[in-house]
């Protein structure tokens, strides 16, 4: 009997342990323990004022803070029945989609790439392949600069607020950003090429996949919940019924099931579900690497991230240009100044596509605008059951590897989900 123990799995966000018992070359038991401490956000914000909920819940996650901020705002605005301006909607779309750049570049280059070249970290690449490191840093910086331009800061945005933004963005700065984004198309395409050429394992999932979907756009801040396999579409406010989240023993993270079964969210789900909405540049890249829906290889999540990067730089360039042009106009819809509203009691629901998958928030307010209940369902808590299921099926297929290679194979499968355990626990 031998045991593979991974204490505080590296190159993921948050703290998780993996243990796999192997007997006579057979996998006996697999455990994935999320030991990330609970910060109790859903209870913490009870008693706080409606406008403090987005500020606090943004702190669930430092890597997708813009997503938590905007998703909570959407929930608060739904509760208060606020309709925001078109410009506010576009700015939020740009902020959320812009967060894909920084996140995907980090997940691909800093977290995942070292596995493929059998290195402990990204740092040694600075000497062996400096152009790869430079490309990664350029993409990360571009994503950060974009989120800083739109949200005031890359980690934990400042300007999004209930009903709008506290500050608008200058047209000239938007034009410059749009050009930088267009110029980054080469880096995004090179990323897809780089990851497309890596020797990627193949392991197909049978799970269903969920993502937001809306015809006419690659949905990140709009749309309804769609299940790829089951074929249904449900409005966002139905998420508490559709996605059953439950506490699990020995884990600080809850796990979510749909129809009592594990499912997955994230780039693989989105590329499959919103395939028809990808921009031509992204479709070209996808066809070059031979990816077409329905694609089920878990490890292809990485190449899907790269495809989304290609789509995101082009799409964000268009959004930035659109905002730059309309900023100089004078129509009423051009303002991001917070819409006036009356405080009232109610429950609201919000959802966005975060880089790792669909993120849901809901808040209930009393008639003074004080939060009386809150709920957060993160992408990683939705993926956890799927990770456990796929790991259980995948580990026996690689158990004959040398111990180091077995460990790396297991870690690679987990990293393909780009799990964020501080999100999962929150």
């Amino acid at each position, binding site marked *: 009997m031998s045991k593979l123990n991974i204490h505080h799995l*590296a190159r993921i966000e948050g703290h998780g342990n993996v243990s796999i018992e192997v007997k006579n070359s057979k996998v006996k038991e697999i455990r994935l323990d999320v030991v990330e401490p609970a910060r*109790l956000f859903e209870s*913490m914000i009870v008693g706080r004022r409606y406008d403090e909920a987005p*500020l606090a819940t943004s*702190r669930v996650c430092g890597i997708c*803070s813009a997503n938590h901020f905007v998703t909570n705002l959407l929930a608060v605005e739904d509760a208060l029945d606020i309709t925001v301006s078109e410009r506010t909607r576009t700015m939020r779309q740009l902020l959320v989609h812009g967060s894909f750049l920084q996140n995907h570049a980090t997940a691909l280059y800093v977290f995942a790439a070292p596995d493929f070249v059998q290195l402990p970290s990204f740092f040694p690449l600075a000497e062996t392949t400096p152009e790869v490191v430079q490309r990664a840093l350029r993409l990360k910086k571009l994503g950060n600069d974009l989120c800083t331009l739109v949200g005031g800061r890359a*980690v934990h945005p400042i300007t999004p607020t209930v009903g709008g933004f506290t500050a608008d963005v200058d047209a000239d700065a938007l034009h410059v950003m749009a050009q930088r984004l267009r110029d980054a198309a080469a880096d995004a395409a090179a990323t897809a090429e780089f990851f497309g050429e890596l020797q990627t394992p193949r392991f197909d999932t049978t799970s269903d996949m969920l993502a937001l979907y809306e015809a006419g756009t690659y949905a990140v801040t709009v749309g309804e919940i769609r299940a790829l396999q089951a074929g249904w579409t449900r409005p966002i406010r139905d998420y508490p019924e559709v996605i059953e989240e439950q506490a699990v023993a020995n884990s600080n993270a809850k796990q979510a099931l749909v129809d009592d079964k594990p499912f997955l969210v994230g780039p693989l789900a989105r590329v499959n579900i919103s395939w028809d909405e990808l921009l031509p540049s992204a479709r070209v890249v996808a066809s070059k690497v031979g990816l077409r829906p329905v694609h089920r290889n878990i490890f292809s999540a990485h190449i899907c991230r790269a495809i989304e990067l290609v789509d995101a730089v082009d799409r964000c360039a268009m959004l930035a240009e659109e905002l730059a042009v309309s900023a100089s106009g004078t129509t009423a819809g051009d303002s991001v100044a917070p819409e006036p509203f009356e405080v009232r009691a109610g429950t609201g629901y919000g959802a966005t596509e975060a880089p790792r998958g669909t993120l849901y928030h809901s808040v209930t307010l009393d008639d003074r605008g004080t939060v009386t209940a809150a709920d957060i369902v993160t992408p990683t808590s939705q993926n956890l059951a799927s990770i456990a299921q796929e790991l259980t099926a995948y580990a026996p297929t690689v158990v004959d590897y040398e111990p180091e290679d077995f460990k790396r194979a297991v870690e690679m499968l987990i990293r393909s989900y780009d799990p964020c355990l501080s999100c999962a626990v929150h």
Partner: protein
Amino acid sequence: MHATKPRVAIFSLSSDFGCQVQLSNFPEILDTLSTFDLVYWQLVTSAELPDTYDVAVIEGAVTTDEQVVLLKTIRETASCVVALGACAATGGVPALVRERGLLEEHAQTVYGPDADKVAKDRREPAPLSAYIEVDFVIPGCPIEPLEFSRVLQRALRRLVDNPQRQSLCGECKISENTCFWLMGTPCLGLVARSGCEAMCVSSGRPCAACRGLARDANLDAARDYAAAMGCDAVAFGELLAIYNAAQEYAREHAAESAAGTTGKREAVDV
């Protein structure tokens, strides 16, 4: 000179990893790497924690018994401990659960009646300084990367910490912002530690004191001013609690809040 480079280990306790993300976001940090050896950083490398290191950079609040044990080991091992970000420095947002209700009740709200089977190991969130001596503090939610470089260089050279003494209002005036109080909105710049160049106020959001209290802050005077402007002591305490709920200065009015009194924040004409 052939001095060995200081060995730096980066740890995280209960946090959102945002301050570590800030570090990874700034390539300048890679240049700073040449002045030290980064021997442990779980977020970015699979390298295991070595038995010895010189400087420990710790992100996150302390919320479990396991972390207390780890902290004591770190303190015994490292000659220098740096608190990274608001959670480590003041308890930050995680400490906000201390404002109302018992920890058990919060856990049950989140996990249901079986909370004890799920998240067993937990204690009231606290900053590092509640358990160990901290040599340097890099405040903020999130940290400013350039401040990280500045403070870390002091730590590597074994200089002393040199925190900003003044509250934010001065920096805010230099940034030519209109005072939020004069527009009827409470703002904690009155007492908050400076050093961020009032970036939130400059972007249209009042200060929430994520950098903690300035050493020279006069909290009583600030409360009097706030009260005169229509923000009573309970409301002022509630605002201060967002990032400072684990601190004595923010707890004075927590009891009233917990008892169900809601602070009044009414604008007065100025």
